């Protein structure tokens, strides 16, 4: 009888550990098929024609609609160029030069990838509307406080994500070529 209980306990523990490790692998996305360029991470396999089983599981689980390789490429960042996680208590400057792509957009999302609930405040900038200096360089400020220039509204408190989407990108979608795209830096400004 005790043997049976022990076996049952072992089986239950096995099921729990199995499910937990799946959750860890796809929710935290252990980095399968990702490529990093500075603070930016691209999930290259998300839109690929032959995603690995973990990528397929993650897409199904979260109901994402990734960009296909023929459409473009998107990058997400949860931390600045120095590696500190984004916080609504701080201002961030996104500084960049022209990016090798036909169009790009920079958007601010909550950590689950939803649009932050901040009413009509600006959550996205496109390459067509941004104010630039004469040499094409630009600076976007992500802050909870409204300001002049390229301002994107961050939440008052808590974490958020930045997403940079390149459409009809001239860069290839392999890890090695992404570095050449010239993605912007993210610098932390004042904190409150």
């Amino acid at each position: 009888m005790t043997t049976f209980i022990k076996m049952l306990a072992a089986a239950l523990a096995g099921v729990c550990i199995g499910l937990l490790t799946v959750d860890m692998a796809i929710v935290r996305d252990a980095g399968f098929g990702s490529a990093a360029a500075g603070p930016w991470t691209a999930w290259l396999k998300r839109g690929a024609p032959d995603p690995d089983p973990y990528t397929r599981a993650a897409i199904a689980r979260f109901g994402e609609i990734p960009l296909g390789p023929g459409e473009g490429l998107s990058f997400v960042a949860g931390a600045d160029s120095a590696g500190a996680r984004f916080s609504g208590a701080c201002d961030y400057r996104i500084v960049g030069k022209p990016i090798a792509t036909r169009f790009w957009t920079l958007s601010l999302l909550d950590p689950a990838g939803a649009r932050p609930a901040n009413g009509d405040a600006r959550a996205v900038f496109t390459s067509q509307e941004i104010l630039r200096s004469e040499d094409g360089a630009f600076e976007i400020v992500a802050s909870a406080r409204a300001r002049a220039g390229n301002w994107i509204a961050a939440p008052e408190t808590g974490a958020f994500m930045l997403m940079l989407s390149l459409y009809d990108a001239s860069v290839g979608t392999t890890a090695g070529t992404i570095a050449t795209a010239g993605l912007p830096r993210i610098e932390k400004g004042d904190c409150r």
Partner: protein
Amino acid sequence: MKAARRLGGFFPYALGVVLVAGVVHIVSVLAMPALAPRDAYARFGEWAPVNELAPAPESARDGAAPAPFNDPAMLIAACRFDLSGGPVRVAATVDREHFLSMSFQGRTGRIFHSLTDRGALRDRIDVLLLRQQDVEAVEDAESEDEAHQTLRLVAPTTTGLVIVRSLAESPQDRDAARARLRNVRCAVEPPA
């Protein structure tokens, strides 16, 4: 001696836990695309009709988006295709100035093709989605001229999603971007 015996008694159970955990992990990762109740196909099924294109509902107020990590500057329309009644044609008129893209995904989320307006021939995107068994009949019926302009895509599954994206270059451009989506058609091809 006694400790060694206890360890020996414990070992089969530990092995059992590891084995069960491994099997559960692998099975649930592989089964996720087929079982996930909230994948893109299920979410889009709430508003996207079959073999007909519809714009994704937009409600900026509560921060709802058609899918997580979707670019807020992109307007989305989708068509759930079902090829059991014959091939489905997806066609659009584009101006090659504004960004419009399409991705074609099978029932489990695998993207089997993606394209943008930049690849359009004579300002038209013309795609015929079909099953492998319909290829011959379509080739016989099609004229030479048609064959040149139509991109024939064999879908890996009978059902799936066509996702159309139209970029709003600024908030003022949203209405125009919405109108550009209305230039896209998705319909069952009438029998020749």
